[in-house]
């Protein structure tokens, strides 16, 4: 097919031009493969390059030649394409090769790329390509709705025989020995496939389209890219790694500061006791080399059956999300779960997650959790590293309720496992701007994409430290701010709700109507107040009067105290304390 595209500042050609500006082309040949009517000729000449057009279409080549441009007929899919091009350039230096809208037309683009590298170019030759993006959100939305609209030109040009995603293009080029050095991908929020405009899967005002766009944007940055426009230099072909095999079912990520070796031993002991041993543990140490060495000592104590499943890594700085994300980067399991270095699990913890993943693949798997209060035990010379203050309580043992979770977190971090694909394919990670509530935020974002399979089984124990833990040093305002922030983030986009949510929301709305009605009745002076309500009101008023009386006396005592000598003496200390609280 013959194309007659013109250069335009609002086209992928302009992106190529910007990319080209970063390379020295003067004095060298610029081979334009599949040149068509040579829209890039003037651009190349402006840059000082010697433009040479190559195309299969003899008519286009003749027309180009009539414009005084060197042009040749070459079949880019031919076995001898390298030799033909070599012959054309002869002893001239090749400064650049342009392959704009070419690779997708070839059955075996790797052959062309390979011959270019071995027979045509020198190490300084830059290859500039422009390739349509088959993962544009418009195509995804329409394909979801059963449409695949092939068109004369554009993303689904009728003559395309190959279709590229970001990763497949990367793999093709690297495998052929071309290494990316720059990119100017051409964005087009609404591509040539953006029709019909009112289709709910792509129309900008449609909730479905907005949701799909959000999901697409999670996956990578190419949802709004029309053309991949990139520059490469030749080098050795990359050996592409085969997909990993033998990955465990469950990756467990443990954040640790290495400050609780006794607890960590007990947690690792819990993992050793699992009936399903198909797990790996990534301990992401949030600390320096000394912390890491301490954790390594603990791990090395264990039998190789357990220690060989453990990988250690460390990060410095950042919030608690940083080691979590670092651990996520290393996870290779089918599912991933977090386990802090002071929480426990029962022997069927891994097995229960696996049962859930088999029952509902792709969903977040949730288990129930008992909790207990503990306190550090060795401060007063005791022999125990910590002391439980209570027995186990059924605190997190109710079925998952999304509406409740949007209000507050009722799932400790070691009680939900998410598919690893959520991390690798949809880039769901911990928000490192949050100092607290980061696990809740991660849970909500995971759940709103995957839904939840609640196994309704207690397999975890949450140790609630009565003091000394960082959570107790965080002021209340910080909690409320972070909670609001998390809710705001969730609320800023459309999201999915699981079956049953409509009934739940209707129930809540009905309950709020009843409350409104009751309030109206209570505030209506003409309405008769039931005797028991009137009695309760009278009691409440009496208590309020007593409280006000007591408060009045307290204020008088404070006034006395402030006039006293000791209060004035300790004033600097109080100011210091207030300042510390502010910081």
């Amino acid at each position: 097919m013959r194309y007659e595209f013109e250069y335009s500042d609002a086209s992928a050609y302009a992106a190529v031009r910007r990319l080209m500006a970063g390379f020295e082309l003067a004095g060298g040949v610029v081979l334009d493969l599949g040149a068509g009517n040579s829209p890039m000729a003037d651009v190349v000449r402006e840059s000082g390059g010697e433009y040479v057009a190559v195309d299969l279409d003899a008519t286009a080549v003749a027309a180009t030649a009539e414009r005084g441009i060197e042009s040749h007929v070459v079949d880019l899919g031919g076995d001898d394409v390298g030799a033909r091009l070599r012959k054309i350039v002869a002893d001239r230096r090749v400064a650049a090769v342009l392959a704009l809208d070419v690779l997708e037309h070839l059955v075996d683009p790797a052959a062309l790329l390979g011959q270019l590298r071995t027979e045509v170019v020198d190490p300084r030759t830059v290859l500039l390509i422009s390739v349509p993006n088959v993962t544009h959100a418009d195509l995804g939305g329409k394909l979801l709705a059963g449409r695949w609209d092939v068109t004369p030109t554009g993303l689904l040009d009728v003559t395309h025989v190959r279709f590229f995603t970001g990763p497949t293009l990367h793999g093709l080029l690297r495998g052929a020995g071309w290494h990316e050095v720059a990119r100017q991908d051409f964005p087009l929020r609404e591509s040539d496939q953006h029709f019909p405009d009112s289709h709910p899967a792509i129309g900008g005002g449609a909730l479905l389209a907005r949701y799909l766009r959000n999901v697409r944007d999670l996956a990578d940055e190419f949802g709004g890219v029309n053309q991949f426009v990139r520059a490469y230099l030749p080098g050795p072909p990359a050996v592409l790694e085969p997909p990993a095999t033998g990955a465990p079912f469950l990756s467990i990520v443990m954040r640790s500061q290495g400050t609780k070796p006794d607890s960590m031993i007990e947690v690792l002991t819990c993992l050793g006791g699992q009936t399903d041993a198909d797990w790996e543990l990534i301990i992401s140490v949030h600390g320096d080399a000394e912390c890491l060495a301490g954790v390594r000592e603990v791990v090395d104590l264990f039998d190789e059956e357990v220690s060989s499943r453990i990988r250690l890594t460390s990060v410095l700085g950042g919030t608690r999300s940083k080691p979590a994300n670092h651990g996520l980067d290393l996870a290779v399991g089918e599912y991933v779960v977090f386990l802090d270095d002071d929480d426990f699990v029962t022997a069927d913890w891994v097995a229960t997650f696996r049962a859930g993943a088999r029952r509902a693949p792709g969903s977040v798997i949730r288990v129930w959790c008992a909790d207990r209060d503990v306190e550090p035990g060795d401060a007063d010379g005791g022999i125990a590293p910590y002391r439980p203050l209570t027995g186990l309580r059924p605190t997190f043992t109710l079925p998952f309720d999304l509406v409740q979770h949007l209000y507050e977190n009722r799932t400790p971090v070691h009680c939900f496992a998410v598919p690893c694909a959520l991390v690798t394919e949809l880039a769901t990670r911990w928000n490192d701007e949050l100092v607290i509530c980061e696990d809740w935020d991660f849970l909500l974002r995971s759940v709103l994409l995957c839904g939840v399979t609640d196994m309704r089984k207690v397999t975890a124990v949450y140790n609630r430290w009565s003091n000394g833990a960082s959570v107790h040093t965080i002021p209340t305002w910080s909690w409320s701010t972070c909670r609001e922030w998390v809710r705001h983030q969730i609320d800023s986009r459309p999201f999915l709700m699981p079956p049953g949510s409509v009934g739940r929301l209707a129930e809540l709305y009905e309950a709020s109507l009843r409350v409104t009605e009751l309030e109206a009745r209570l505030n209506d002076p003409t309405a008769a107040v039931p005797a028991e309500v009137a009695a309760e009101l009278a009691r409440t008023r009496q208590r309020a009067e007593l409280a006000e009386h007591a408060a009045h006396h307290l204020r008088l005592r404070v006034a006395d105290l402030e006039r006293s000598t000791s209060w004035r003496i300790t004033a600097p200390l109080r100011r210091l304390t207030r300042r510390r609280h502010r910081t």
Partner: protein
Amino acid sequence: MSTERAGVLLAAVVLHDQNLADVWRMFRPLVRAMELAGRSGELADSAVSIGDCSAEPILDAKAADDLRRHAADRGIDFGYRWFNENLGHSGGCNELVTGARADALLFVNPDTYCAPTAVAQLLAALRDPWVVAADARQVPCEHPKDFHPITGEQGWASGCFLIVRRTAFEEIGGFDTAFFTYGNDVDLSWRLRLRGGKLRHVPRAAVFHDKRLTARAEVVPTRTELYQGLLARFMLAHRYGHPDVIDDLRRQLAAAELPAHRQALADFESMAVAGALPVQVEGGAEVADFRDGDYGPRRF
């Protein structure tokens, strides 16, 4: 076990209807913990002896050989005996340690995974010549029995992961086989204390005990626990001179709904009539403590 010389440790494990994976889950960490204790110079020699009360042997020749090789590679001896009858935990343990030349005996439940430091920590407790037995902290469901926060001294020691000085064990005749599977640790503990020995809890010696939890965060009782546990309580109350406890239990069980509880009461009454109850021990009431349905005060 003394402070003067390196000692010899024998770990005894009684199996009943576990599978091979369960055995390895218990065995690997146990061998590792014994290996680490040996490296500290505290142990001259150590061995693991497994007795099997199952109807069919859990370990075939190859499996036993694999375990033996695993232990031998780490300098630890290994033995396996299929008893061809169910001797119970008490009878099985006694069989395994009879005639042992060990200084200390370590009784290990098969549904455990011990921490690598657990054996060394328990051995360290025996450095005190007055301590005759010590037990480990169980996770994730910690036992609520009380212990002294500084000394670790306690009223009884759990048999889940229990080290006992061999001489003391032999002096009292080992476990009483009248207590088939449950309550034998309480009985052993109280008899050791009657002879002046001290029992210690070692919280830094951790052992994972495979306990499952109900939706109410309560430990799921094992198949025989309801029956065996209650029968053991009757027998302990009898042996240690607490007829009041027996009467209380009878009253509480008058309307028992669980068949296992009704059966335990019936069997106890039958044993009493037949004169088959364990022999009462002199001064037993001094060490026995039956408060609040437990065998001593609870921490929580």
